[in-house]
C-alpha cells in the first residue's frame, strides 16, 4: 500500500460515515425543516419515544430509525393501519459500516394504495444482533431475512426456517458481508475446497421436506437427524395442513 491517498480512502471506508459533533444515536430528531411525510408524523404520534430519529436523504427519501424492541409492533402497524397500508416489503437488508459501529438493519416499504415509500432502519449493537422476524407480516421477508442472516449474522426471532441461503450449508467461516470478514475467507483454500467437496447437498432439506419425511415415515440423513434439522419449530410447519 504505497499510495497514501489510497490508504486514506481505505481507512475512511473502514470508519464509515462520520457523525456530527455531539451527535449520539439517541439524539432528538431534527426540527420541522424536512419535507413532510404523513407516515412519519403518524408514527411519532402513535409510538412516541420508540421513534428514535428521522432523516431525509436524496431529496425525498425518508428514513425512520426505530429501536429493536418494538419493531414487529411498529411494522405490523405500518402494514395494517388504514391510513398507511404499507402492503409491500421491497427489501430487507443490512449495512455494516465497520469499525465497531452498529449494524443497520433496513426495511424498504412501499404502500401500493398510497404510492408512498418509507425506509425503516434499526441499529443493532454487534453483541446483540437479534430482532423479531416479520415473516408473518410480509411473507416476502422469508428469503430476505435468510439472506440477511447469512451475510450479516442477524438472528430473526420467530423465523420458521432461518438457514443459510447463499453460502453452503456447512459454511463455518462466519458472515461474509461483515466489514471484519477477510476478503478470501478465514480458512485456507485447501480447507475451503475440501469442505465444499465434502458437502452432500441432498442431505440438507427444508423444514417442509423434513415434515413430509416425518409424515411418510422416511429416515432423515444422519447430519440432520441429530437436531431434527435446522430451524424446525417445535409446533411443526405452518401452512402444511392441520397438525
Amino acid at each position, binding site marked *: 500500500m504505497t499510495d497514501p491517498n489510497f490508504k486514506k480512502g481505505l481507512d475512511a471506508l473502514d470508519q464509515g460515515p462520520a457523525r456530527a459533533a455531539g451527535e449520539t444515536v439517541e439524539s432528538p430528531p431534527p426540527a420541522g425543516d424536512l419535507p413532510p411525510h404523513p407516515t412519519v408524523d403518524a408514527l411519532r404520534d402513535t409510538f412516541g419515544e420508540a421513534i428514535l430519529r428521522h432523516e431525509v436523504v436524496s431529496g425525498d427519501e425518508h428514513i425512520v430509525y426505530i429501536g429493536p424492541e418494538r419493531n414487529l409492533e411498529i411494522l405490523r402497524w405500518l402494514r395494517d393501519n388504514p391510513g398507511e397500508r404499507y402492503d409491500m416489503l421491497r427489501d430487507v437488508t443490512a449495512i455494516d459500516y465497520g469499525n465497531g459501529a452498529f449494524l443497520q438493519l433496513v426495511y424498504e416499504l412501499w404502500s401500493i394504495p398510497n404510492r408512498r415509500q418509507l425506509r425503516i432502519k434499526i441499529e443493532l449493537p454487534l453483541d446483540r444482533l437479534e430482532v423479531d422476524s416479520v415473516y408473518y407480516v410480509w411473507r416476502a421477508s422469508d428469503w430476505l431475512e435468510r439472506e440477511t442472516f447469512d451475510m450479516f449474522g442477524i438472528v430473526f426471532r420467530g423465523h420458521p426456517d432461518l438457514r443459510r441461503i447463499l453460502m453452503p450449508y456447512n459454511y463455518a467461516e462466519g458472515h461474509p458481508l461483515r466489514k471484519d470478514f477477510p476478503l478470501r475467507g478465514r480458512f485456507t483454500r*485447501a480447507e475451503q475446497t475440501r469442505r465444499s467437496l465434502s458437502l452432500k447437498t441432498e442431505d440438507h432439506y427444508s423444514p417442509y421436506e423434513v415434515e413430509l419425511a416425518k409424515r411418510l415415515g422416511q429416515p432423515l440423513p444422519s447430519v440432520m437427524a441429530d437436531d431434527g434439522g435446522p430451524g424446525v419449530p417445535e409446533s411443526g410447519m405452518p401452512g402444511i395442513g392441520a397438525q
Partner: protein
Amino acid sequence: MGLNPDEPDETRRDAHVAEMKESGGLPVRTAEAQGGIFSGAPGFLTTRLDTVVNWARENSLWPMPFGTACCAIEMMATAASRYDLARFGMERMSFSPRQADLLICAGRVSYKMAPVLRRIWEQMPQPKWSISMGACASSGGVFDVYSMVQGIDTIIPVDVYVPGCPPRPEGLMYGILMIQEKIRRASPTADWVADESLIEGLPTLPAQHLDLVTSPFGNSTQQNRSSGLVSSGAIVRPNDRQP
C-alpha cells in the same frame, strides 16, 4: 469399366492397359479398384484399431455444457449458426452427463457449486475429457474471494484451458480442436480404461500444493489489507456467530 466374371483375364488386362494409356498413367478409380463396395463384391480394409476408435471418438464428441456465467453466452454463440460447432461433429449438446464425453465448464464456479460440478464429472462415462473455458474457470479470474473456486482443476482434471474473459467462439473452437488432437494421439487399446484418480470428497491436489497454486498473485495481493489466511492477523470477532 464393369466387372464381368465371364470376361477372359487377357481381355480385362488389355482393356486396363488401354485405359492407363488414355489417362496418362494415373490410376483409374473403378468399382473394382474400390474393393467392390458399389458392386457388392466382398472388400476389406486394413488399419490400426486405435485409428478407427479415435476417428470415431473425435468426430462425434457430445459436449456437456456447464455454463455458469458470461462464458456460457459465448459457448451458446459457438453452438449457434454463425460459428456452428456441428461442423466438428458436435451435433448435440448433451444436457445429461450420462450421455456426454466432453465437459465444457464455462464460467466461474462457486464453492457451493463445486460438489455439483464434481458429481457431474463423476457421472460422465469413460472416456471423457474436459475444457476449462475462460479465466474464472481456469484460475478464479478476478474473483479471488471467499466464495469462489480458484480454478476447477482443484475439483476435476482438466484437459484444455481456454484463456479469455470471455474467450471468443473461435477460442473455444480452437480448444475443442485441441481436444480432438489429443484424442487423435491417444491410444485407446493401450489405455483401455482411463485412470480415474479422484478420491471421494477430496480435491485433486494435496492441501499444500492447492494452497500454493491458489495463493494470491500479482496485483491481487494489494487488494485488501485483511485478506488472506487466519494467520495474517485478520480480526475475528469473538461473538461472530457460527451457523
